Structures are given as structure tokens and as C-alpha cells.
């Protein structure tokens, strides 16, 4: 469809846009987002240039900032890989947050109650536990979806609250550290239940896990039989039935794996960063992950990059406050960039042309 625009210009749909053009569009989008946010900063009487440099400096401009961006990236990217798998099959798993908490729950169980195990047994055990707990949590909305076509969007979302309060119950109740002055925290994990980190950063070895999962997912979707079934089922359930693929089984398998990967993210967070379970372990990773998955068009490799970007924005965001910018400006800044990046997508599909006279 062509839309009339000013004068002799009009917007046309295109299907072929070169890599160079896409690069240019993305670059322009970011610059526009920066300028747009900068205008508001200017209106409040602050220096936008200082803000730009601050956010970049603090997220990727220093070794510490870069390391912290990677720390944020791990849970974001893992959850995002998780939801992206379900999204491929048009299963709107909004429950990554809850699956993340349940994964942390599974991992914590072993850290607390089998604390004498050696690290080489403990960590794999925690990994498997988080995988299973996250997966089973996602299976709860998957079963009614598979058998009775109950909308999974709402059920998976609501289960997030259940998971959150289940953890709350544990840390206020049975799992509370008896020596913790009654604060709602579990005991600190033993060293054997702690994922090692690089040097004196907070980046844990879970980042290898992330890379392996991302690459595996890429090959799974693109080349494997099961990945193909997921893509077909996601495009047309009727076609999947027609081709003799079991939709029900695939819903269950995909949702399980989707939740399991978010569960691993939960394990990586409690075991790699927090070293204990507490009421709040995620500032909304599971929700941001949805945005990342969509921004990256569900491509596993793009998800890594988009998570890095979002991680950088989160890190830079708090840093902005320490430099005296209000927290609302931080949100506005992040929103503005995302808005323009998403708007820029349009220009990948449409182009502005001068009408022939």
C-alpha cells in the first residue's frame, strides 16, 4: 500500500533491502533516538552530551562497566532465548519471570540441603534441578493449551505471581537463614554451589552456558527436524497436523524447554551472582526478555546482541542517576531509543521515494 506523504514523496513497500541499507537505518534510528531523548534532557536544563557519554561510559566504556553489562546480559539473554523458542511456535509464554524464579528455587534446594556435595557434582545437579523446575513450571500452562486450547498468555503470566510468592513464602518461612536475624534471606550458598567468576568481576562462567545454548538454539531452529516442526507449527497448526506432526507433543516439548532455559537463567543468577535466594532476585528480566526476543525477531544470535544492548542500557541507567539525572529521565532515555529502533524497522520494509513526475 502506498501512503500519500508530503508533496512528491511517498512511502513504498519493499522486500529487498540491502545489508548496507539496514545498517544505515539502524544507525539512523539510534541517532534519532539519542537526539529525541536529548531534546527532553535539554528542556530540563541538563546537558544531553554529558548524559550520552555517561550512559556509554558506564555501560561499555570501562572495564567495570563492560563487565557489569555482561552480568546483566546473562539472565536477559537466557530468558530471551527461552521465550523466543515458544514464540517460534506462536506460544505466547509470558511466564519467563516465574520460570526464572522456579529455576532459582530448584537450584537453591540443592545448595541448601546437599551443601556437602563437591562442586563438580553440585553445580550440574543445580543446573538440572533448575532446568526441570523451570520446565515444569512452563508445562503448567502448556498442558491446558495443548489439550484444551486454553490461552497460555494469561495462564503463564499469572503463574509469575505464584512463583514470586512461593519464593517469598520460602525465604520468609522454611528456608529463612536461622542465623539471619529473621531477615527474609536464605543462608549464603557454600562455595561448592557457587559458579566461579572471571577474576574480580561478577561475570560467572554461566556465560559459557549462555553461548552454548544460543548456538545450539540457532542450529536447532535452522537445521534440525524438530526446529522445522516448530517453525511449521508456528506458522500453521493445520499444516503441522497435515504433515503428521504432533502438535500436542510439540506444545509440551517446546514450552518445557522454553521454561527450562529461563530456569537455567534463575540458577545462573542465584548461583553466579547473588549466592543466596531472596525475595527479589530479578528486576523483571523475564519481562525485558520478551522485548528482547521480539526486537531480535527471535533469532538466537540477534538475541545475544540485543541482550547486550539492553544490559548496557540497564547498567547505564543506574549510572545516570549517580551522576545526578533523575530516574525518570533514565526510563525516558531507554524508551526513546527502543521506540526509534522499532520505528526504524518500518524503514527496512518501506522506503521513501520521489514520485515520478
Amino acid at each position, binding site marked *: *500500500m*502506498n501512503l*500519500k506523504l508530503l508533496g512528491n514523496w*511517498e512511502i513504498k*513497500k*519493499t*522486500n*529487498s533491502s540491502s545489508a548496507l541499507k539496514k545498517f544505515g537505518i539502524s544507525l539512523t534510528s539510534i541517532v534519532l533516538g539519542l537526539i529525541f531523548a536529548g531534546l527532553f534532557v535539554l528542556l530540563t536544563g541538563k546537558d544531553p552530551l554529558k548524559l550520552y557519554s555517561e550512559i556509554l561510559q558506564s555501560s561499555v566504556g570501562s572495564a567495570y562497566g563492560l563487565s557489569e553489562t555482561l552480568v546483566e546480559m546473562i539472565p536477559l539473554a537466557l530468558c530471551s532465548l527461552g521465550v523466543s523458542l515458544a514464540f517460534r511456535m506462536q506460544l505466547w509464554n509470558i511466564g519467563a519471570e516465574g520460570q526464572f524464579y522456579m529455576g532459582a528455587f530448584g537450584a537453591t534446594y540443592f545448595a541448601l540441603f546437599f551443601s556437602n556435595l563437591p562442586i563438580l557434582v553440585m553445580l550440574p545437579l543445580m543446573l538440572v534441578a533448575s532446568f526441570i523446575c523451570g520446565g515444569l513450571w512452563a508445562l503448567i500452562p502448556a498442558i491446558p493449551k495443548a489439550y484444551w486450547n486454553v490461552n497460555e498468555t494469561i495462564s503463564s503470566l499469572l503463574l509469575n505471581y505464584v512463583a514470586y510468592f512461593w519464593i517469598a513464602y520460602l525465604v520468609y518461612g522454611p528456608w529463612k537463614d536461622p542465623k539471619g536475624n529473621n531477615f527474609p534471606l536464605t543462608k549464603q550458598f557454600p562455595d561448592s554451589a557457587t559458579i566461579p567468576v572471571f577474576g574480580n568481576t561478577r561475570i560467572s562462567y554461566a556465560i559459557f552456558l549462555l553461548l552454548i545454548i544460543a548456538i545450539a538454539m540457532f*542450529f536447532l531452529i535452522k*537445521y*534440525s*527436524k*524438530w526446529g*522445522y516442526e516448530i*517453525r*511449521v507449527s508456528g*506458522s*500453521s497448526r*493445520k*499444516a503441522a*497436523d*497435515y*504433515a*503428521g*506432526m*504432533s502438535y500436542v507433543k510439540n506444545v509440551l516439548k517446546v514450552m518445557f524447554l522454553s521454561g527450562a532455559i529461563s530456569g537455567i537463567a534463575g540458577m545462573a543468577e542465584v548461583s553466579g551472582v547473588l549466592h543466596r535466594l531472596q525475595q527479589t532476585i530479578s528486576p523483571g528480566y523475564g519481562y525485558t526478555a520478551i522485548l528482547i526476543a521480539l526486537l531480535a525477531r527471535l533469532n538466537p544470535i540477534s538475541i545475544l546482541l540485543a541482550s547486550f544492548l539492553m544490559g548496557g542500557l540497564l547498567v547505564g541507567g543506574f549510572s545516570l542517576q549517580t551522576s545526578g539525572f533523575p530516574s525518570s529521565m533514565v526510563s525516558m532515555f531507554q524508551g526513546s531509543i527502543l521506540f526509534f529502533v522499532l520505528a526504524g524497522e518500518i524503514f527496512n520494509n518501506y522506503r521513501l521515494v520521489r514520485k*515520478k513526475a
Partner: protein
Amino acid sequence: MIEMRKIIKEFPGILANDQVSFNVNSGEIHALLGENGAGKSTLMSVLTGLYRPDGGDIYIEGKKTEFSSPKDAVNYGIGMVHQHFKLVQPFTVAENVMLSIKDLKQIYNLKEIEQQIIKQSEAFGLSIDPKAKIWQLSVGEQQRVEIIKLLLLGARVLILDEPTAVLTPQEANALYETLLKMVKNGKSVILISHKMNEVLENTDRITVLRDGKSIGTVHTKNTNEKELAKMMVGRNISDVVEKKSHRKNDKVLSLNNVSALGNNGLLKLKNISIDIYDGEILGVAGVDGNGQKELADTVAGLRMVKQGSVSFCGKDCTKSGRKKRIDLGISYVPEDRMTTGLVTDLNAYENMALKSYRKNHGAFIRWDKVRSDTDRLIQKFDVRLASTANPVKMMSGGNIQKLLLAREIDSDPKLIIAVYPMRGLDIGATDYVRRLLIEQSEKGKAVLLISEDLEDLLSMTDRIIVMHGGEIMGVVNPSETSREEIGLMMAGKRKVDLHES
């Protein structure tokens, strides 16, 4: 009255209209004839302001005009009835008409609108009750509502896109009477169609498009079917395909007293017993919705039987699902090729893997092999497409069907189920599919052909089953039956001497 000069419209990879010129006089019915993908719809979308041409001009009453939106076209008195009606089902006729009125007052007078509807319907023989709800109306009546809407908007040029595709013969006749009255009143009608006989009977002039180009405009009274067909397809078409029976004596499929439920949970197949033999084309006739689709699904393994048994090549397969039946050698060309037979978001070679992807061992698909197979089939079946890497939805209807058939036939099946395989295809593609199916029977494959076109069934099949209300009314031999006999059975009369294998 309207003249389109050298219209060019380009889509990525496709030149949909290549310098097409076309004109309509007031008081005439002008047909736009062409195969699917010839550029008819594009040209009319340009005329109704939906697309802007990349080149060429439109003149209305001799004045150069530009439309920047469909609204502009409406203001010039150009309106279109689309194949899919744009009506709000729970609303009444008058309310639907009201929705399209420009400058509707905040406080409107529905009575007045109803009056106007009655006035228009009397003038042109479009009998309709303005107070009826849309969902209560037949397809033909809904079409009338669309036409009335345009008339009340002041349309002087009406464009109808395949208007008779959804109508019964009686309804189609009534429609043409209406159109005749309208042109007598000075209005113009443009008819988009690929049905030659109707066009020949009911129009004044015919413009034929092919591959985005205008082949020529002829006066209807000076032309004939042969000439038009040649213009449309670019070559001669033999009228009837010669059919010899290739039936052998090996039973491929047999259904014994099969009953099955429909999607709504009601019994849709009742005690069906049929056998299909090697090399046989078994036709199934019936009014749409009398169990034919359920029959196809049941044979294909997409629908489990409630009672009875199914056996394939002598072995019972009542309980086996779709996957098993694919392995047994049952190919299926479903009615709904765009969402069932193919995944239109995926590209051509990904679609070709839809059933064969399980074949090789291991967890991964050998895409290189799939790709080379696809290239071979595209050659063999003459599928035209810009690139095998483009989503299938970018292909034209005929080529999509060819792609689907290529996959289903290439898997070397023993039985091919084909449901309405020619529906919506143009002459060239229809002819191609017809030959292909007959060729398969020559090769000894059994074909279960479900069709609504009696001509096809009579000319292609060895036997015809007539279905009504989920039951078999009778089995007839094409050479010994008549359209009347089949018609009666389709309406629910049993063939008295029902006794066949």
C-alpha cells in the same frame, strides 16, 4: 467514460501491469478476462485508488485524474464489489449501508436509509429486506447489499470481482439481469472473470490480460470461446481430455461402514463403505458440506473413525494416524492449500520438506538435498517463481497448487486424495492439474477426486460417489449417468439400485 492509459504497476520482483490500456464506455458491461495472476485485480485496484500506478494515467470523462485514496475513486463514482464482502455480520442491511455513507450525520435517520435501499432495490431488481441481519442472508443476497451500498454512494462505474464464483446458477442469472438494468440506466459495469461462457453470454466487450499485458479488446459478439482461450493462455487448449479407464483389480483402500464426527462434534460421516482400486479415479460429488471433507480427512488419517474400519492395500490401518498414513503412501491435496497443504510463511524448498523431512536419519534435515530436489521438481512441474527462497505466499495461486501437487506426486504415493484441486485456478492451470491426475492414474495410482464441478467428474473419473448428509446416495458410472441423475442424488435422493463393490 473511463480510460486507463499505459498503466504500469510494479511489485518487488513482479511487473503486475505492463503498460495496460483499458477503457469503459457508459452503458456497457465490459469484461476483464485473464488467468490468475494476469494483472486484472491489480489494474482494478489502481482504478479504485487502492494502488497508485508507477506509470500511466487515468482519464475520467476526458480529464486526467489522480486518486490518492479509495475515497477519491468513490468521489468519482467508481466502486468495487470484492470477492470477500466487507459486511458486518450482526448488523442489519440498513446499518451496513449506513456505515459506508460519507458525511453521515451524528443523528441519522435509519428509516430514511431503509427507504432508499428499497427504492434502489426496486429499480434494479435487487430484492432485499433492509431490516434483515447480514448473517441471515444467503451469499447472493449479501452480494446485493454490496451493490446497493455502491449505488447509494453514487457509483456510476461498478467493478465486480468474480461475482458468480459464489452463486448458484439461478442467482447468477438474476445478477446478470440486474447488471443489464443498470447499464440501461447509463451506468457501466466492469466484470473481472475467468469464466468464458458467462463472459460471452453477458458482456458487450472483453479485454483480455495475460502476464500483466493487455492482449486486446474484442466485441463479444465477434468472438468465441476458442479465440478467447487462445488469447488468455497464449496457445490452443484441447477441449476435452481423453479419458480411458486404467482401473486394475488390486484394492488400494477400503472403508467399511465408517462413521466419523465433524469438527462440531456432530456425526458427519455415516456408514460409508467404499473401495478404491489401483489406477482408478474415484470421484465424489456433492453439495459442499455434505461430508466430503470429512471423508478426505478420514482417509488421510487426520480424522479418526468413530465406527468401522479402514484398510490400505489389504492391511488394517483404522488406528494409524496421519504420520503412519503418509508412510503408507497416501498423498493428500487438501482443499485449503494456503494454510493446510502449505506453510505460506516458509519458502518453496522448506515447503517441499513438509512430509519428507523425517526421511533421513539423525536429528538434522539435509537441506542441501531438499534444495536440489526442489529445483528438480520445479523444473519438472513447471512451477514459476521468483526464487525458492521467497515465502510461498508471494507466488500466484496456480503455481502454489503446482508446487503442492509436485510434492504430493513426487513422494510416489499409492493413493492421491485431491479435494477441489482445480478450485480457483485459471484455465491453463486447471487443464494442467486435470492432465496430471489422469497421468497418475495411468501410472497405476489410485485417485480420490472430490470436486464440485460435474464436468470434471464426468470426464475424468471411473466411478462417481454422490454424497448427501454424510451418506452415500449412490455410485454411478460416468458414461451411464446424467447430470440430472447426479443432481437428484446430490439433493438427497438415493440411487435405488445401490449395489456396487
